[in-house]
């Protein structure tokens, strides 16, 4: 399909001149009109053929399907029963489905449109679109062009949320290939503490494509835990950007788990924009069939004395492929930066593949940075050791793979949720002990 022509009509009909976000949307629409969708000749999109995901018959009507509130309970993950639940359907924020359990003294959730016209408008002006500086491509601009259907979340200054914020993305693919563009802007105000979980579900058997942008500002001395869980099944495609800007002494901890999907692209940006910030990034991709998971991470050390640590692990079976690209920038002024990065991959089959690319650009001269990546198969010596104790080959493999994944799983603090994901992984590995 010709994406520029296809979306132009929708843009003209749907994006209202009266919107507070009109100028932001227009600016991005102009960018998209110029850039179009990223092609594989674009280095950042070398392995992910985005254009192929935009097929004829794609449904993008910016209408949420009506979903029975009772049906939502199917989407609740173990350990999050009492959480703040935020629902997006077909990429559109649904205030009437959303349920907030924490007090409004602690937590505010509203439409992005509303936030851009009230006391939060200064924040919106300052931070909306921050990711474009790092992901300046047509796919980011396309999302931004339609951002008025998005949501704004604010964790108030000093608030310690008792419950996580779970953001549910539901795509209704009953009628055909569904396209969604959720947009979220979040302010984690200073000294506050929050956990944000993103999860994705599809109704219907047709394919879906979710092009998401979530931008978060973690302000001074605030603490954010972020978990993204992808297990939508074959036919679900995803291009998502999580852009986190953190100010002085802020601490961010992110875990990205990809268990299924067709083509999955995750951008995770950490902008260390204040001294003594700390950032932990973990990822696990356990792939089979034809799944492709492409994780691009950026740590931008703009200020001195920040710490970041990154560990991504992949297990590829079948004809799946895992891609990791980890950029670390250390700006000239960012002295005393500590930045570490590790990516480990295990290939379980002839046809699976892994591509890994660490990319460090260091302009300061007093820093500690390291990176390492491995691609290999299961350790034969370890496998033999287990088998020599009477553990079957299949269980020995499962045991080793499970152990390989364990250091990422352990990063999920909510015990029931961790046990649930652990169960999914054990089932996949057919671990029967």
């Amino acid at each position: 399909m010709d994406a520029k022509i296809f979306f132009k009509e929708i843009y003209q009909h749907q994006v209202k001149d009266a919107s507070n976000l009109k100028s932001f949307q227009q600016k991005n629409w102009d960018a998209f009109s110029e850039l179009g969708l990223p092609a594989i000749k674009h280095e950042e999109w070398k392995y992910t053929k985005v254009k192929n995901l935009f097929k004829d018959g794609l449904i993008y009507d910016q209408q949420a399907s009506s979903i029975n509130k009772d049906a939502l309970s199917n989407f609740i993950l173990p350990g999050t029963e009492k959480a703040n639940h935020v629902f997006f359907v077909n990429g559109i924020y649904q205030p009437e489905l959303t349920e907030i359990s924490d007090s409004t003294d602690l937590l505010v959730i509203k439409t992005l449109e509303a936030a851009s016209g009230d006391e939060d408008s200064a924040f919106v002006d300052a931070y909306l679109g921050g990711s474009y500086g790092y992901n300046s491509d047509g796919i980011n601009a396309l999302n931004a062009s339609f951002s008025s259907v998005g949501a704004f979340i604010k964790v108030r200054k000093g608030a310690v949320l008792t419950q996580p914020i779970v953001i549910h993305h539901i795509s209704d693919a009953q009628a055909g290939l569904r396209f969604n563009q959720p947009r979220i802007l979040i302010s984690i105000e200073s000294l506050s503490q929050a956990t944000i979980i993103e999860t994705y579900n599809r109704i219907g058997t047709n394919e879906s494509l979710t092009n998401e942008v979530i931008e978060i500002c973690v302000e001074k001395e605030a603490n954010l835990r972020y978990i993204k869980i992808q297990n939508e099944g074959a036919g679900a495609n995803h291009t998502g950007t999580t852009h986190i800007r953190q100010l002085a002494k802020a601490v961010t901890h992110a875990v990205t788990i990809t268990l299924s999907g067709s083509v999955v692209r995750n951008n995770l940006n950490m902008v260390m924009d204040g001294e003594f910030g700390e950032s932990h990034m973990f990822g696990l991709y356990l792939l089979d069939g034809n799944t492709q998971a492409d994780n691009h991470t950026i740590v931008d050390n703009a200020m001195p004395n920040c710490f970041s640590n990154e560990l991504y692990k992949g297990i590829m079976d079948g004809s799946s492929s895992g891609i990791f690209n980890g950029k670390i920038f250390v700006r000239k002024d960012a002295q005393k930066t500590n930045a570490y990065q590790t990516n480990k991959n295990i290939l379980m089959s002839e046809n699976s593949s892994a591509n890994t690319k660490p990319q460090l650009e260091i302009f300061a001269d007093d820093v500690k940075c390291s990176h390492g990546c491995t691609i290999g198969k299961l350790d034969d010596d370890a496998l033999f050791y287990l088998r020599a104790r009477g553990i079957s080959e299949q269980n020995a493999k499962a045991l080793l793979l499970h152990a390989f994944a364990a250091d990422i799983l352990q990063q999920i603090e909510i015990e029931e949720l961790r046990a649930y994901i652990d169960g999914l992984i054990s089932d996949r590995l057919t671990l029967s002990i």
Partner: protein
Amino acid sequence: MLKIENLQARIEEKEILKGINLDIKPGEIHAIMGPNGSGKSTLASVLAGRADYEVTGGSVSFMGKDLLDLSPEDRAKEGLFLAFQYPVEIPGVSTTNFIKSAVNEKRKYLGLEPLDAVQFLKTMKEKMKLVEIDQSLLSRSLNEGFSGGEKKRNEIFQMAMLDPKLAILDETDSGLDIDALRIVANGVNQLRNKDNAFLIVTHYQRLLDYIVPDFVHVLYNGRIVKSGTKELAFELEEKGYDFIKAEVNEATA
């Protein structure tokens, strides 16, 4: 129990075992000694089923079954145990969970009910005493960050848990100080009975001060060139391996 006849094996293109014959009966302790590179560890690995080695001739029967026809895991379940010369470090797998899986897979194979948590813990406590191993070590990842002595004690602990019919100790004494050696030997001595057997592969006579073998065999250049009783071990210790080499070379000259 174990009958090895004319066993030949190679790794890649290199012939290492050139016709081994050995017969081990229940209740016996056999020691295999020999200089470096004589094929001692290869013999242990081939018996345990390591895939790197290709058996090119001969036969091995274990408890009446064709051992070479069994997978490594089935050999273990039939009652063969190899204490590794270099136990592998496996991050993320706790020793306790691992040994529980191993014990219960073996029990399943033998048609027994799996041990429940209480029974398992009870057995584990007993066996831990045997090798003077601490609970905290067993909660850690398998062999990860263990000292050499701890790794070897862990091997003997696993042996005690699995209660094998035939245990092969592949240079279990290497790198051990005298205290660790005594603990390991003590474990073996307490586990030995009239129904099980041990094959102790070692370079030095030292371990045999603590575990007294019924038979000593000298492996040289892929063959057992001399067999005897424990006195042979003393002779080797005294004279070194050179006299064996000289004897063999004379005989083949």
